[in-house]
């Protein structure tokens, strides 16, 4: 039997222990309530910050190809390496890290050792310089992938993880063809980790080829692995569209090689050339010198960086004569058998002369073109009158942009008729007093070569969406009829063939086995307000199409200020045309349309 006082003692101790346990349980319950209910949002946010990762995904910038699918501008995958030097705890680790970086990357040990300094001096707003932890340093922006992966593995072995040195997939723009078409393609610069286009097609087509970033939001495990449950949000990145140009890389390469040779032969300030298909208006090649190499920024000089062939407008000289005479024939103002007095080489009333002393005598229309007679052309222009001459130049696109995708394109210039003076009629018709761009001239001659239908010049063939495969073709305007009479084109072509035959101004533009129809132009530049007649200040052009009867290509060559050799269109630009066109015709498998004379 338990004594009464002992029984009470057990009871009291039981009650005390039970009460203590109850109090502890209550305290725990209150604490749980506080943590789980009242502070729920706070701790949930804290946990999310640790276990939910946000990752930006980057698409690829669209690439640029030629018409055959050869890559002109592409993306080269590489890695961006950055560091948080404040996380490197010991000097020995800093040395080891710098040594490994020097081993695999392209700078020396001292450079990386400096970069990995744990503190950095920063100037505050009050002007004081303080030492702060160095939390971010860019180590290498475009490191090759294979060496980056080796470096990453080696760093992991010495205990450097992604919190200290991080590796991010990125890409840089690459131009595998070097200088080929560099001015037209343009280039990009890196601004705040983005490729920002600076010139050329890269800039003009940026809305189509630029990529869109995406975002990934997911719950991750301790080792960084993505978990299926929890937060899972994905906004896919979008690659930019690929662009296919009308340019043919082999033809472009031929043209550029010949321009390089012309730079040696003539030592001009600049030279530019373009080749187009007259039937479709597709640009097959477009080149200029001086040029840049987008892979080597040292070649970026102010003279070389411009797209002269689109930006520059100039007085083209005699190449305009064929356009004016062609329209005069079309309107019936002149007929092929009409004759014009050569005024013995100097037309006193209009104060213009022909290049040959004593003139060319009595010329028919074809001889006016063949000899490039200023007097003959001026007389034909007088028959046309101001209004019709103006209309003739306008119908061939003078003063009208071609609409090609260049950030800057000059529209050329022609004064309205009301502002013409006494001599405008005879000057404008021979290519002085009006400004044309090379592309406008090319377009105009496509109109002659294409039987009187002037096509819209095109540089973009189509866009391709890399993710959906959708092909988008830019709209093409209907060709403009420049000759109402279908026979005009053939008549004018026959006259222009004589330009490249004996007696013509461009014998050196002839191609064995082919009839070449074309026109030379030699104009003088205005220096200090006056026309300079020095040979080294002329613009020498030749524009033609071949084979004359069924043209496969129209080509313009302009030599700006040749300092060596000949300075006339036929002798400076003609040989470039001949050599280039001969090679291009062989590449295009165009058979000669007449027997090739034996050597």
């Amino acid at each position: 039997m338990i004594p009464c006082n002992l029984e009470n003692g057990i009871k009291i101790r039981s009650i005390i222990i039970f009460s203590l346990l109850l109090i502890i349980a209550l305290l725990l319950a209150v604490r749980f309530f506080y943590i789980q209910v009242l502070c729920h949002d706070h701790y949930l946010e804290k946990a999310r910050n640790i276990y939910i990762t946000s990752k930006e995904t980057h698409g690829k910038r669209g690439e640029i190809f030629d018409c055959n699918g050869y890559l002109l501008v592409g993306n080269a995958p590489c890695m961006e390496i950055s560091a948080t030097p404040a996380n490197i705890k010991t000097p020995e680790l800093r040395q080891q890290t710098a040594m490994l970086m020097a081993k695999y990357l392209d700078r020396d040990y001292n450079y990386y050792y400096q970069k990995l300094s744990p503190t950095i001096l920063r100037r505050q707003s009050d002007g004081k310089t303080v030492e702060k932890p160095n939390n971010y340093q860019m180590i290498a922006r475009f490191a090759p992938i294979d060496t980056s992966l080796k470096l990453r593995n080696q760093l992991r072995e010495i205990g450097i993880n992604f919190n200290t040195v991080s590796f991010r997939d990125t890409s840089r723009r690459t131009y595998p063809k070097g200088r080929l078409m560099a001015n037209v393609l343009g280039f990009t610069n890196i601004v705040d980790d983005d490729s920002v286009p600076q010139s050329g097609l890269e800039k003009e087509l940026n809305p189509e080829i630029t990529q869109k970033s995406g975002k990934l939001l997911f719950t991750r495990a301790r080792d960084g692995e993505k978990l299926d449950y929890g937060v899972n949000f994905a906004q896919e990145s979008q690659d930019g569209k690929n662009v296919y140009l009308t340019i043919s890389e082999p033809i472009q390469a031929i043209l550029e090689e010949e321009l390089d040779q012309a730079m040696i032969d003539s030592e001009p300030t600049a030279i530019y050339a373009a080749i187009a298909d007259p039937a479709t208006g597709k640009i097959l090649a477009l080149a200029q010198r001086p040029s840049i190499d987008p892979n080597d920024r040292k070649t970026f000089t102010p003279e070389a960086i411009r797209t002269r062939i689109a930006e520059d407008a100039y007085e083209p000289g005699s190449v305009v004569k064929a356009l004016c005479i062609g329209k005069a024939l079309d309107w019936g103002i002149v007929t092929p058998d009409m004759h014009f007095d050569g005024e013995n080489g100097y037309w006193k009333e209009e104060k213009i002369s022909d290049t040959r002393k004593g003139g060319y005598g009595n010329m028919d229309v074809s001889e006016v073109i063949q000899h490039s007679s200023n007097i003959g052309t001026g007389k034909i222009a007088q028959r046309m009158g101001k209004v019709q001459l103006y209309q003739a130049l306008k119908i061939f696109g003078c003063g009208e942009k071609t609409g090609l995708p260049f950030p800057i394109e000059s529209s050329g210039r022609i004064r309205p008729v009301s502002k013409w003076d006494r001599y405008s009629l005879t000057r404008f018709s021979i290519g002085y007093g009006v400004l044309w761009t090379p592309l406008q001239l090319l377009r105009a001659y496509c109109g002659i070569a294409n039987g009187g239908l002037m096509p819209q010049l095109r540089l973009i063939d189509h866009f391709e969406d890399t993710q959906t495969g959708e092909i988008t073709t830019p709209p093409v305007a209907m060709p403009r009829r420049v000759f109402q009479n279908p026979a005009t084109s053939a008549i004018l072509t026959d006259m222009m063939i004589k330009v490249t035959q004996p007696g013509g101004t461009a014998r050196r533009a002839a191609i064995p086995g082919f009839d070449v129809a074309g026109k030379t132009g030699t104009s003088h530049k205005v220096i200090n307000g006056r026309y300079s007649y020095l040979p080294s200040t002329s613009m020498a052009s030749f524009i033609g199409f071949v084979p004359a009867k069924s043209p496969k290509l129209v080509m313009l060559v302009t030599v700006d200020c040749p300092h060596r050799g000949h300075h006339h269109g036929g002798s400076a630009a003609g040989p470039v045309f001949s050599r280039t066109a001969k090679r291009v015709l062989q590449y295009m498998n165009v058979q000669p349309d007449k027997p090739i004379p034996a050597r």
Partner: protein
Amino acid sequence: MNIQPGNRYNSKRKSSGKVKVSFGHQISTMATVLCFAALIGMVMVVHTNLNQRISDTKKEIHKEETDKRQMEDELQLKRNKIEELSSWEHVSRKIVEYKLNLHPSQPGQTSKMKLRSGARSEYLFASWLRSRQKLPGMTAKR
């Protein structure tokens, strides 16, 4: 059985004695408990194993995706290299470097022929070959 309520501290209360349970009943009860425990254990082990395999498979998938991305990057780099090596600037440099003495063909010296598949195209190709063999300088029939 003593069903009379009483003071449990009554010394006069006699113990009713132990309830006798048969050995077999005990065994069956233990076996049932063990079975259930084993079942639960098995389910837990299978579940854990499956989760582990899922986790391992995901890691492999992630690794394969990483490898695939790396291969795509390598392919891209190789393609860029091919384009660079096939550029005329590079080829012409090599022609000069190796003194290959190549020169452009004369007009009409070369010709190209595009064949579609089929017996007719084989006939055409054979005719073309024969015509080339008769007169070496002759161009192919247009």
